[in-house]
């Protein structure tokens, strides 16, 4: 018998991490900017929200967007740094960013140091404390808004610009796209959703500590992003579901769990590099065909593209 609260906990976590992954998908999936430090943005949002609500008694409903904005601002900084760096340098710089941010959480008492911040209040709405299923609904409403933003972005010039800088920066410039500006946008927008996810995570767990946002969490988010599939608005939710559910399913394996998980991951990536629903994957082609209402000619050509 699967218990409800357990299920709700899992679903809430899926929703929160899907939101952070959706942000990462903007930075990495659409704009092609490697970010191995997304968890740091989640942490920045979580601590912003936690500090505002515990030390300054600001309402959750104000802290939630502020958490996103804080991450957004730091995202601008990282975006500026990213302008000068090429692929692998950028990858390692974002790893470093993650390490430095959690180190600051650990070393400075504002962030609770190694003890973290406890008693983060649960949000209330019309006098009802939002917990378990109410909180899950809140998370999924926020996720739905983010997915709608994602959909809208795909259909706006923003999406076009991000894809263009991913493909070729010079070509993008020659089409009137200011590459620097859009790199900064890619990082800051991606960070915004991570920050909001961080706030949601903080008020869900009611206790956060620096180690919740370490580099391994960034890798988890990256795995969600790639397994679900890059450049797809549904990818993050699918990726988050897999990455969170699999270890739960593997739970009976106890100490063999991590080994099984690692092998599963390697096999999946080897045979499905586009992820479950990423641009160019089998499912993606089917869905696009459904929305277009016709079987498009790209099907075969995309298959060729996979090989190239």
């Amino acid at each position, binding site marked *: 018998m699967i218990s409800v609260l357990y299920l709700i906990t899992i679903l809430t976590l899926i929703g929160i991490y899907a939101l952070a992954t959706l942000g990462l998908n903007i930075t990495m999936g659409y704009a092609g900017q490697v970010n191995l430090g997304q968890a740091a943005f989640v942490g920045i949002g979580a601590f912003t929200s936690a500090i505002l609500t515990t030390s300054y008694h600001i309402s959750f409903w104000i802290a939630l967007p502020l958490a996103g904005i804080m991450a957004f601002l730091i995202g601008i900084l990282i975006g500026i740094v990213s302008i000068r760096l090429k692929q692998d340098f950028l990858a390692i710089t974002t790893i470093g960013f993650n390490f430095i941010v959690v180190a600051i959480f650990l070393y400075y008492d504002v962030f609770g140091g190694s003890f973290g911040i406890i008693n983060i209040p649960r949000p209330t709405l019309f006098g009802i404390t939002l917990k378990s299923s109410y909180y899950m609904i809140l998370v999924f409403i926020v996720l739905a808004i983010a997915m709608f933003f994602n959909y*809208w972005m795909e*259909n*706006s*010039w*923003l*999406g*076009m*610009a991000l*894809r*263009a800088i991913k*493909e*070729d920066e*010079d*070509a*993008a*410039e*020659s*089409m*009137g*796209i*200011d*590459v*620097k500006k*859009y790199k900064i946008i890619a990082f800051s927008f991606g960070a915004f959703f991570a920050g909001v996810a961080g706030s949601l995570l903080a008020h869900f767990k009611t206790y956060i500590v620096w180690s919740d946002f370490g580099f391994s969490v960034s890798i988890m988010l990256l795995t969600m992003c790639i397994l679900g599939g890059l450049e797809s608005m549904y990818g993050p939710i699918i990726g988050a579901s897999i990455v969170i559910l699999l270890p739960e399913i593997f739970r009976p394996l106890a100490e063999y769990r991590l080994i099984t998980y690692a092998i599963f991951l390697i096999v999946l990536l080897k045979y499905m590099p586009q992820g479950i629903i990423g*641009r*160019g994957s089998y499912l993606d082609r089917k869905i696009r065909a459904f929305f277009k209402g016709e079987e*498009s*000619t*790209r099907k075969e*050509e*995309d298959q*060729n*593209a996979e090989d*190239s």
Partner: protein
Amino acid sequence: MLKIVNLNKRFGGLQALSNVNMEVKKGEILGVIGPNGAGKTTLFNIITGFLKPTSGRIIFQGMEIQRLPPAKIVKLGIARTFQIVKPLKNLTVFENILTAVGYQNYFGLHFFKRWNEEEYVKKAEKIIKLVGLEGHRDTVSGLLPLGLQKRIEIAKALAVEPKLLLLDEPTAGMSYEESEEIKELIKRVRERGVTIMLVEHNVPFAVDLTDRMYVLSYGKIIAEGSPEEVIKNKKVIEAYLGGEYASVES
């Protein structure tokens, strides 16, 4: 239309361009030829803002543009193609052109606007037709042969509605037939009132197409005039024979 005044560019110890002065007149097809390493592509990169000059000025329609970023220059009306084609490989031909068609929307906060408006879709389709890619509208561009990718390159440049179009070796690596088709295409473009500046390696092709020519050698202008005059110029022949005879042949 475009005036280049005392342009210099240095890469470390190498003087890539020295004291280049040039003028592009409205409506013409201007050729820039010269042996390998003469600085032709560097010149293009500076005009389009991809490189900053060491000294000198570039004036486009009365405005100094040498310090502007490439995207701004595009908005002012100068478009370019790349010698090594740079299509957005994983996007379809239509998406490639559409990205360029929206060039005015990448400034400020206009990027929040939807691209799926009739205005843009129609414009993109018109350009696809103009360059003769109707049959490949929904093909992923990276899969097309080089000849067709060159057309995408030109189409993208046209899509930004340029007043001045800079073509960097549009026929490099193409067969004779393909070159002839491109030639026709360039002529059609010019009929639409676009001024064209053309860097070419292929001298006969340039002679055939251009109204006027500059010859660059080792970063200096060594000759200027009508194609017929220029190819008879002694300095030019020396430059080609002394430098790389083979390149005239190719």
